[in-house]
């Protein structure tokens, strides 16, 4: 059965810290891995990764995929209180998108 496992489940840091969120997966016919940020209700898209070893970067956030070891990491540098959210990893196979449980990040001032 396809599965997506995120770690840690929760993380508390202080402003300015750097964090690394992990996502490992097992899915048949892998097509892409996506990262979302969920602050209130609706997840908002961050990155989509399809190829190994190519870093995607947006400001202080970056992500990379390892298709051999079946995992991805999401890095956030110089964290701010506005980064507090649940970060969701989702993996897309042939049809459906399967989400992990998410990592709840809390950034304290």
């Amino acid at each position, binding site marked *: 059965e396809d599965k997506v496992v995120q770690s840690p489940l929760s993380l508390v840091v202080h402003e300015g810290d750097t964090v690394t969120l992990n996502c490992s997966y097992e899915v048949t016919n892998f097509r892409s891995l996506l990262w979302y940020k969920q602050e209130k*209700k*609706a*997840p908002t*898209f961050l990155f989509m990764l399809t190829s190994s070893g190519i870093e995607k970067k947006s400001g202080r956030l970056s992500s990379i995929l390892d298709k051999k070891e079946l995992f991805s990491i999401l890095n956030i540098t110089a964290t701010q209180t506005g980064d507090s959210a649940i970060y*969701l990893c989702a993996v897309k196979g042939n049809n*459906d998108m399967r*989400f992990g*449980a*998410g990592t709840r990040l809390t950034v304290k001032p």
Partner: protein
Amino acid sequence: EAGVAQSPRYKIIEKRQSVAFWCNPISGHATLYWYQQILGQGPKLLIQFQNNGVVDDSQLPKDRFSAERLKGVDSTLKIQPAKLEDSAVYLCASSSTTGRYNEQFFGPGTRLTVL
């Protein structure tokens, strides 16, 4: 560009009652998804439509849940009868099959509480 619209935003019902949720996707998006997100968990796909046809409903509890997208645009998700464990946020998302990244855009969700 208008986003995905959902209504109602909140709904409280008693168990064994029926409830329906509505979703209007982004204009031109052929693919529509319904997700159930239980507190503390990631969203779980319930059903995926491509235009007005069902692509995947393998995780939809068909004894009580139903969904339709008759004209290939907006969609309704119904629960009849509701159980306590149906309490969750129901998210609707849409995507354009012609989009470069096939990114899913999510609506604000409907928070359902079953008492």
